[in-house]
């Protein structure tokens, strides 16, 4: 199982087997502007879908990042501590935020595919 999905709160989720990699979308990055600080969750933390797990500060705003799925945080992108600008440079690649082990695959159905996300952004 391998797929990439999106949320209405502008996170992207790349799923490979039971592990989901999460970041913010290019659209979200453009809205935020230059990122100066990222507050990442602790590895091992159990999170519920929709819970605030991280926050991103840019020169003009602070935005919360929500867990797109329920599960356990298994890895965070420590590079962001010293290079938060990776989120602007490569939001859907090197600028990933954290990886989580999914506990409820049923929740995948609530996520958007790329086309639905693009349509959602166009409407917003």
């Amino acid at each position, binding site marked *: 199982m391998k797929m990439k999905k999106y949320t209405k709160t502008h996170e992207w989720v790349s799923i490979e087997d039971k592990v989901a990699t999460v970041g913010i979308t290019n659209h979200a990055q453009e809205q935020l502007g230059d990122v100066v*600080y990222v*507050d990442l969750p602790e590895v091992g933390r159990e999170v519920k879908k929709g819970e*605030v797990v991280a926050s991103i*500060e840019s020169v003009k*705003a*602070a935005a919360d990042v929500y867990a797109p799925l329920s599960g356990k945080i298994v890895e965070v992108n420590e590079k962001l501590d010293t290079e938060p600008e990776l989120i602007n440079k490569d939001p859907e690649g090197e600028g990933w935020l954290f990886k989580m082990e999914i506990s409820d695959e049923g929740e995948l159905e609530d996520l958007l595919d790329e086309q639905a996300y693009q349509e959602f952004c166009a409407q917003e």
Partner: protein
Amino acid sequence: MNYPYIPHTDEDVRAMLDFIGVSSIEELFSSIPVSARSSLNIPESRDEFSVFKQLKEISEMNNSLEDYAVFLGAGVYKRYVPTVVYDLAMKPDFLTAYTPYQAEVSQGTLQALFEYQTMVCELTGMEVANASMYDGATALAEAALMSFRLTGKEKVVVARSVHPEYRAVLRTYLEKRGFTVVEAGYDETGRVLLEEVDEETAAIAVQYPNFFGIIEDLDYVRSRSGNALLIVVVEPVSLALLEPPGSYGADIVVGEGQSLGLPMWFGGYSLGIFATREEYVRQMPGRLIGQTVDQAGNTAYTMILQTREQHIRRARATSNICSNHAHAALIAAVYMSVMGPDGLKEVARRSYNAAHYLQERLEEIGFKLCFSGEFFNEFVFNVPEDYPDRWRKMMEKKILGPLPLEEFYPELGDTALACATEVISKEDIEKLLEAMK
């Protein structure tokens, strides 16, 4: 009727009324019920001269602490403040209740606050200090909340030798929100007695010197704190002599800043000191002023890291404090600058000496110390059962005597907390001894 200090002319008023389509001032306020308007029992206007005279008569009914020998400390201290401090601090340019959001018109205030933060860091041995909190008690409560954010844990251990009113505020802030406050007792030295803390504890809070005046052994506290953060409540003037808490690995240092140049007022306003380590700065509450350069490359000051604050982060802000005590911090900055490190040391040393001399004299007439630990400028001693009555009577002789402790520490029996600062003279002490006999 027109007054020279009300800038609106009759034409201005007419133009404003016409603009909103109301015929008269009376009509503008017509939605206020007549009963509410007529119930204001305000006398006819009078001339300034007679009002001033009447107010002066009323003010002369006050007792001024200037006329008292003050042996009551317990968190608020009578000190001598050089007149130049208020000449500078009360300049109208500085007197605003507003936060200096607009850096371009607030450089003076911002620089003073930046200097204040720097001096607080020097005194406490910490890396970053905010531009003030309300007072010592709320600063302690905010420190506990910050420790919960940092650790994800929900319990704080607080020494019983921390100011009783601070502990009460701590409980008010925390318990209704579901956090746990546990007290740790003290031994015969008057210092805190700690069990090894468990893994659920976010922080340990102690006071240094503590409420009994005893200088806590922060090495011991640190050795018992395990993975918990160490919060230290301080009296800033004492830090001119004592090793700063930062040297003992304190994580958050808070305190009451009244003794840095603020009068005792009538219970406030006062000044909350708050300092921490740089790595924790994003979880710190309160305003923070930073130094930077402007477009032309000149040194400039501005509020920084505002993403912690509620005007940016709303519900997830680090604190709901929106107004700080900027002017109190400014007074403290001027006081510390005027005194300098040597001046502050002298104030601290004189306070220490006066308190130790007072303790010796009390001992000579039979009043025994309650604790064996080394004290700074306050100490607990045993008093007769009728002391609280005598304490009240002393006030008639213009003595504010040592504080009876029974209300706060029933387990100590008949005791009182004495304080001496640099303004206490030998004559004051003899006067107290006479009243104690």
